[in-house]
């Protein structure tokens, strides 16, 4: 047996990835692979029944995650991962549904679905890998691109105001909001574990290097430089007011767990309310 094949048997990621599709398509120095590793560690540590975990992705670089993870995974249309996940969760409340998608997919085209799922406190976990651009299509400006950044559809610099994703999630009613960078490996893992324990809409933003596009066009170096830069420029402020955590061009990145509150989910609200109004005639759902 070649050393390569013997390697496969012991690699701890092997049970978790579709090894017949590895190596993946992400660029050298891309942080998405690292985020997937952190996710795998979180799954291992929380001892969840992996048969009940579903991953839904949209379109884009991060959207390819569903194709590599060996769980029930769905690669849906651009921006529609969150309603797809809503359908999965409501149809079978035992499932633990994770939306793993990029910033352009979740808050660009999928913005409407994001705010409503957060508003309803749908019991899903959204992991948003934020690389500040639409990478798969060649590096176009996105809703999260900082002002002054240079991208292919803003070749003279971006002049549009970006979203502050934690602020958006908090304002819409999410019950768990955190932001980390890809290098905060174990904190990302812990955040995912905490989010798994919570019921309600959990949102974790992971700032990730995009070497081939964002970093190259903005002279931020290669994967290592940009990862170091994100990590060194990040400041942990747990519980910070989400109104103050926006990211400016080449500025400080505030990370940490910003929101952690309890609120009844959509299904529990539905069950409680209809039981109160209809009494015994109501068929309780999903319990």
């Amino acid at each position, binding site marked *: 047996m070649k050393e390569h094949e013997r390697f496969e048997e012991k690699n*701890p990621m092997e049970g978790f990835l579709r090894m017949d599709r590895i190596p993946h398509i992400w660029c050298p120095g*891309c942080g998405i*692979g690292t985020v997937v590793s952190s996710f795998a560690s979180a799954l291992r540590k929380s001892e969840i029944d992996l048969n009940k975990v579903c991953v839904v992705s949209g379109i884009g670089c991060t959207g390819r995650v569903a194709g590599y993870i060996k769980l029930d995974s769905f690669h849906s249309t651009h921006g529609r991962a969150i309603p797809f996940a809503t359908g999965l969760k409501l149809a079978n409340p035992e499932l633990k549904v994770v939306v793993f998608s990029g910033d352009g997919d979740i808050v660009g085209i999928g913005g409407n679905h994001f705010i409503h799922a957060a508003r309803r406190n749908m019991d899903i976990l959204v992991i948003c890998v934020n690389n500040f651009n639409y990478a798969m299509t060649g590096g176009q400006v996105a809703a999260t691109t900082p002002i002054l950044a240079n991208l292919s559809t803003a070749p003279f610099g971006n002049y549009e105001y970006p979203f502050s994703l934690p602020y958006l999630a908090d304002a819409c009613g999410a019950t768990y909001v955190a932001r980390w960078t890809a290098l905060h*490996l*174990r904190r990302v893992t812990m955040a995912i574990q905490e989010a798994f324990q919570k019921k309600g809409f959990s949102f974790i933003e992971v700032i990730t290097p995009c070497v081939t596009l964002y970093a190259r066009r903005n002279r931020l170096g*290669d994967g290592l430089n940009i990862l170091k830069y994100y990590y060194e420029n990040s400041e942990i402020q747990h519980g910070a007011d989400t109104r103050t955590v926006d990211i400016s061009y080449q500025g400080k990145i505030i990370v940490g767990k910003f929101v952690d509150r309890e609120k009844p989910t959509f299904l529990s609200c539905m069950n409680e309310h209809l039981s109160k109004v209809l009494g015994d005639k109501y068929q309780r759902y999903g319990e």
Partner: protein
Amino acid sequence: MIHFGDLKAKKGQIHINKDRCKGCGFCVEYCPRDVLELSEEFNIKGYHPPLIKKEEECCYCQLCEAICPEYAIFVTLKKEEEEGEKSESRP
């Protein structure tokens, strides 16, 4: 009573899948013991995979394994240590 003298640092055995590596350098940079460095050789895709400089220094922190975006490196507990201690859950 705790005897600090009896505690032994863990030692790790590093496994590298050279051909899957894309030479990003994360593992080299972030190893807390500087165990790795980028080699001069090329792998099948033309990247420089890491090489193990000082394996004895590896303390089984598994940071390289957690950070590698290509899943090309992982660390196992060295055989002689496994009997003496209970192995903890992987970080």
